[in-house]
């Protein structure tokens, strides 16, 4: 049976779902509490960004971006190991957190959980890039802080069935 999520767009785009997702993933996987902060993410000369794509009933992406200090802190919390540079393990950890954020976010809406698939994570290093979406249905972008490090999570939806 065809599934239409258009009637649920208000629920899907509810910013509280994103806040609840951050709290769940960071509490369970890193044991930290994040606070939401206003304003843009402070620019660091180099950055780490993980992207997980959505496909199916909703197309778009979950984008998890941060400076090096936050990436090192996240990987350190996940593994119990202190990292001095953004190596493959750090990128792997950041990508996996993005994967969990995308999965937990779509899991907040049952129709979305059932009919929206996830790509494997891609991780980008460097800050000289732009995310282009032609005509987004909606976009959520929140910034959070934990342990003195900050990160941003963007949910961009460019198609809804």
């Amino acid at each position, binding site marked *: 049976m065809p599934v239409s999520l258009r009637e649920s767009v208000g629920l899907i785009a509810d910013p509280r779902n994103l806040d609840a997702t951050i709290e769940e993933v960071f509490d369970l996987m890193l044991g930290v509490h994040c606070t939401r902060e206003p304003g843009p993410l402070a620019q660091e000369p180099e950055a780490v960004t993980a992207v997980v794509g959505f496909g199916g009933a909703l197309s778009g992406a979950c984008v998890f971006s941060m400076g090096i200090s936050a990436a090192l802190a996240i990987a350190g919390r996940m593994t119990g190991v202190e990292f001095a540079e953004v190596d493959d*393990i750090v990128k792997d950890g950041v990508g996996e957190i993005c994967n*969990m954020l995308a999965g937990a976010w779509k899991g907040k809406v049952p129709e979305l*959980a*059932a009919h929206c698939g996830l790509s494997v994570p891609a991780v980008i290093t460097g800050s000289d890039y732009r995310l282009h979406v032609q005509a987004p249905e909606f976009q959520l972008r929140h910034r959070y802080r934990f342990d003195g490090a900050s990160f941003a999570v963007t949910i961009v939806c460019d198609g809804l069935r």
Partner: protein
Amino acid sequence: MSEIRALIVDDSSVMRKIVERALRQAGLDLQPVHEAGNGAEALELLKAKQVDLILSDINMPAMDGLEFLRQIRARNLAPGVPVVMITTESSEEHVKQAILAGARGYIRKPFTAEQVKERVLPLLA
């Protein structure tokens, strides 16, 4: 509990270590832990190694976790060995597909070590 030979399948090496840590926190004496980055690698490993427990992600490149489940049943690899899926995919449909393919348990990421203990230990009793 006696020594358990575990196979952890996940494309994230960090997640493989986190799952291993959770199993040890659950009190399992893991001897040894085998790791694979996708279903195809895991199938190759099962041809050569015997294991007592398999934990597998679903979303992986090359061969996903559901196809891996179907293949181990079709090839009669690791007969009787419990397979637990650990994945971000949490819908009823995904759980149903996994159970139909032969999974004995399902753990949603993010998870706690306590959840791993609750879902895995009864399967080894």
